[in-house]
């Protein structure tokens, strides 16, 4: 069996993996390898043909494939080795990565491993929609792949469940391709996607959005013939007597994303039940020494620009680890406090500046975000409106931190 030796193996050739690899190389780590299961690099950006990517990072609005190509070109120019059509099937605590492709199975002993596998969509099974199991039920990203990559239309009369960004973007895409999108239903009392997408993907095309509504039955024998929609209460329980039938041939689900961490678990990486990603410190190192995580595998981001930036920050630390074999010990715990759903990183060393990323649990008007340690306010930010759809980031400077005491972030 083949055994390679690498300084760093990057698992996943999407935006996180590409940015991490490029930055590792720029930090002088030459012996690196990207492993990508798809035929091409670029990850999910390949099918995100709408524009709006890169506004933060490049100051212009690019499509997903264009954004990805900038990184792919740079990786090629730097001579970074990438294996595509290759699936990683195991990672050990000792950082032996096992992968398989048409040439067979091989192992890579690496000094550092970068987890950049991204996330996947929640499915019908995960949200338990009752009813029949006909054809015509797609996750939004699957429908996006059919239409944008495979030239296959998924349906004509569409109902969308969930107001995630991909669902709304697909509402517009399907409308442009001649389908009739009847409505978007959202169980929560507020939209889960960005306000600009409600505006430019739904309102522009006259597609209604019903909040506090969910699909309670799927009808149809061979193909979807319609769905029953009910109003839900604040505990998401359907309210009797509010059922309404909507005829349609297709149901699209945009009901959330889950970091894809099966490989991380094989290595013994401990996950945070809030983010469903790894617990990491301010070096983006997981609980396993030398195994790092960034991007959507760590926590689901709102914008790809922030994925790239996070992966670059990871790379700086991973490069330090490869050269020195040790990173500052992180003993200060960061906890999400009132109205905060999660906070990343979950532990910090207090020795370097870091970016705290988090989301609020529900929309808050005139919101005050406070980062404090042992009663001392470290940072305070006022926002006109904080919504769960936006990831909030605050830069924390190390000289304001004390050792040992817990850091808490709250939003009121």
């Amino acid at each position, binding site marked *: 069996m083949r055994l390679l030796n690498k300084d760093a193996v990057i698992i996943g050739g999407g935006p996180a993996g590409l940015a991490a690899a490029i930055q590792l190389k720029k930090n002088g780590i030459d012996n690196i390898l990207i492993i990508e299961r798809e035929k091409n690099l670029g990850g999910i950006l*390949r099918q995100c*043909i*709408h*524009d*709006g990517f890169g*506004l*933060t990072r490049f100051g212009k*609005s*690019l*499509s997903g*494939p*264009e954004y990805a*190509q900038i990184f792919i070109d740079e990786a090629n120019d730097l001579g970074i080795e990438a294996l595509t059509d290759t699936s990683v099937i195991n990672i050990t605590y000792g950082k032996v990565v096992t992968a398989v492709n048409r040439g067979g199975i091989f192992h890579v002993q690496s000094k550092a491993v970068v987890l950049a596998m991204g996330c996947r969509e929640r499915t019908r099974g995960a949200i338990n929609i009752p009813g029949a199991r006909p054809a015509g039920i797609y996750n939004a990203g699957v429908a996006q792949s059919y*239409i*944008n*990559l*495979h*030239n296959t239309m998924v349906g004509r009369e569409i109902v969308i469940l969930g107001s995630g960004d991909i669902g709304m973007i697909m509402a517009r*895409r399907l409308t*442009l*391709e001649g389908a009739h999108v009847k409505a978007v239903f959202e169980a929560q009392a507020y939209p889960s996607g*960005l*306000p*600009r997408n*409600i*505006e*430019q993907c739904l309102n*522009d095309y006259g597609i209604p959005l019903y909040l506090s509504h969910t699909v309670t039955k799927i009808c149809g024998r061979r193909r979807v013939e319609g769905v029953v929609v009910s109003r839900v209460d604040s505990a998401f329980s359907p309210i009797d007597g509010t059922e309404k039938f909507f005829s349609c041939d297709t149901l699209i689900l945009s009901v959330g994303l889950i970091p894809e961490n099966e490989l991380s678990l094989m290595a013994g990486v401990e996950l945070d039940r809030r983010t469903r990603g790894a617990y990491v410190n301010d070096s983006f190192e997981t609980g396993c020494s030398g195994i790092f995580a960034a991007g959507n595998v760590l926590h689901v981001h*709102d*914008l790809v620009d922030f994925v790239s930036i996070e992966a670059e920050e990871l790379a700086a630390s991973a490069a330090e680890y490869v050269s020195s074999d040790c990173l500052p010990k992180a003993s200060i715990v960061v906890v999400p406090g009132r109205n905060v759903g999660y906070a990343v990183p979950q532990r910090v060393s207090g020795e370097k500046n870091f970016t705290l990323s988090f989301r609020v649990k529900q929309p808050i008007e005139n919101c005050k975000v406070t980062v404090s340690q042992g009663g001392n306010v470290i940072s305070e930010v006022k926002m*006109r*409106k904080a919504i769960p759809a*936006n990831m909030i980031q605050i830069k924390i400077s190390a000289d304001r931190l004390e050792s040992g005491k817990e850091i808490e972030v709250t939003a009121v």
Partner: protein
Amino acid sequence: MTGQLICIVCPAGCEMTACIKDGKLEVWGEKCKRGLEYAEREFTNPMRTIATSVLVDNGELPLAPVRLDNPVPKKQIFNIMREIKAVRLEAPVHIGQIVLSDVCGCGSDVVVTKNVGRAQPRL
């Protein structure tokens, strides 16, 4: 006349209030001047960009994604979609390749946003 609008220029999605007073537009709530420009256009002639795809013959992929390089009047979107649908390209195609210039006279070009190489011959 007063209206609420959400800026779509960037992901911040500023919630703005706009009102026409003595024939002049006043705007509150925007965080940058692009919001102001957006509000002005929204009240006179709403503009949008769109992205879609075109067929590629003999390509490694059946489609190449395209987008408009400038916003166009909202009411022209479906006319433009019809024009784009009629396009067929021959592989290879490259990012930045213009497939339609000044589409529907709207002052915007339709440009390819993904490199699609020629299909490998089957052995």
